[in-house]
């Protein structure tokens, strides 16, 4: 276990030492700030006020850091988060192969399975870290603008969701949602990781993962898959947001997340099956 931890921490250090990784965090901060500015000056705040008041609630109470943070998170992950995770996941195995690093890594006494496990766990940790960063930095920006306290208003089209929470309950739901969204988004990373195990370029792996998700999303919207949506990843991915619903449908969330974990495990096994049988020679 100590050896595995040493291998994993070395992989994490390698991942976090890359300039591209750190630039990603800065890019997200800038994006979040930009979303807040646009929300304020492009009429987003007015529309939110109109919407909340239409539900018979006071906008002043729900115009809070938590409400703003959830809007920023949704847009950040939609605009950049998924692309960034697909890029990092796609790089994980294929970039090392392209750069010839396996000529150094695999001449050590380590099996391909273990090396992939170390890489996958690092990717999982990175996904959680990135999503946590997006969530909590959005909240910090929200706190800087709106201060502590107020209510928590959540509105989503998919899954259909409209909830009003008090500050304490809202903060608790928000914290829970950061965890469930990290787990849900791990599936996107896993898909990119799987494609990365194939003998293709890293960019191709990232594009393949994003394309799969886009098609999956389009199918989710189409009536053609109405009775078969259990086969679509999007349906299970959105289950992260149900922790914001009152009462929390734990069974639904559990089913969705377990399905995603099973998909992740399957993708890892398939990726290994391909990678283990590849000849690694320039």
């Amino acid at each position: 276990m100590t050896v595995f931890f040493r291998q994993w921490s070395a992989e994490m250090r390698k991942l976090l030492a890359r300039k591209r990784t750190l630039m990603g965090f800065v890019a997200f901060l800038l994006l979040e700030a930009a979303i807040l500015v646009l929300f304020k000056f492009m009429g987003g705040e007015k529309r939110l006020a109109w919407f909340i008041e239409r539900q018979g609630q006071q906008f002043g109470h729900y115009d809070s850091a938590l409400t703003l943070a959830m809007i920023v998170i949704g847009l950040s992950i939609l605009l950049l988060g998924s692309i960034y995770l697909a890029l990092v996941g796609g790089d994980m195995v294929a970039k090392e192969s392209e750069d010839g690093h396996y000529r150094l890594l695999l001449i050590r006494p380590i099996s391909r399975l273990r090396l992939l496990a170390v890489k996958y766990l690092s990717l999982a940790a990175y996904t959680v870290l990135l999503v946590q960063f997006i969530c909590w930095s959005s909240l910090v920006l929200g706190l800087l603008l709106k201060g502590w306290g107020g209510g928590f208003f959540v509105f989503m089209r998919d899954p259909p969701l409209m909830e009003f929470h008090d500050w304490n309950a809202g903060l608790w739901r928000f914290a829970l949602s950061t965890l469930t969204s990290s787990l849900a988004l791990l599936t996107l990373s896993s898909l990119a990781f799987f494609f990365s195990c194939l003998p293709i370029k890293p960019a191709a792996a990232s594009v393949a993962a994003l394309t799969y998700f886009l098609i999956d999303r389009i199918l989710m919207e189409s009536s053609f898959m109405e009775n078969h949506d259990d086969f679509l990843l999007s349906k299970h991915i959105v289950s992260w947001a149900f922790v914001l619903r009152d009462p929390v449908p734990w069974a639904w969330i559990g089913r969705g997340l377990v399905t995603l974990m099973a998909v992740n495990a399957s993708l890892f096994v398939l990726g290994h099956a391909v990678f283990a049988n590849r000849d690694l020679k320039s």
Partner: protein
Amino acid sequence: MAVVEVESVTKRWSTGRLALDAVSLQLRQGEILGLLGHNGAGKSTLMGILLGMVRPDAGSVRVAGHCIERDKVAALGRVGAIYEAPAFYDYLTGMQNLRALTALSGWWKPREVERVVAMVGLSQRVHHRVGTYSHGMRQRLALAQALLPMPKCLLLDEPTDGLDPEGIVEWRELLLRLRAEHGLSILLNSHLLSEVAQLCDRCVILRQGSKVYEGEVRLRQRKDHAPAYVLRGPDVILIRQVCHQAACSWDETSGVVNLPEHLSGADLLRRLVEAGARIEHWVVHQASLEELYLSLSKS
């Protein structure tokens, strides 16, 4: 005892090209074995198979007594290697690279690392980013990673490729010192004949995926070749005549005279003396590795 045993290894690429054809060899304890061959002869493929990077279609490879395909971790436990051009992480320092690589062996001893870094002459730059290293420094770092933790066997794939002459001499001395001090067994894949001739005890020559020679590097008279001598003297015309009459071939430039099977060196010498030829130099010809290599290539 053999540290590395290769038995009838065959590899055919997906393109259909035969990379290795039933190649067998042994690396014995404490010896330096050279692996020679032209570009595309299969040397790097064989190294890849020894390191578990390439999967053979047939045959078996045992390293330190363990099958590389079934138990790679045990097989490479005490093996250090340089495989093809080592690609380090340019954005990490030399030391961070060493740390990341040795972590895969589950090993990290700072003092030992510093000792090896000093041994390969990289102490001054090991804390700088690898992106700023010259080719020679990368090769030194490659050797450092191969020596951490100290292995019992080194598998080196063209380690002096691109090094300057001083660098090559330093490498040679270092490898000989490592063998003397630690009893390392070394398999050296190189296309530099002089390097193999100076470093290795034995060599294997590959040609188009097949082994065409395995034996001593410091060649004496080969049994499968006619005897040869080096003959020099001022009476060139006379010597040429006598050699012609005795059905010998004499190369005036190198002085090498190849004798036919029915003629001994003493017979030819007697004929030359009887003809009145003055002889300045007469020794048994010791074939060089280059000659052997070229003769095998031509055949």
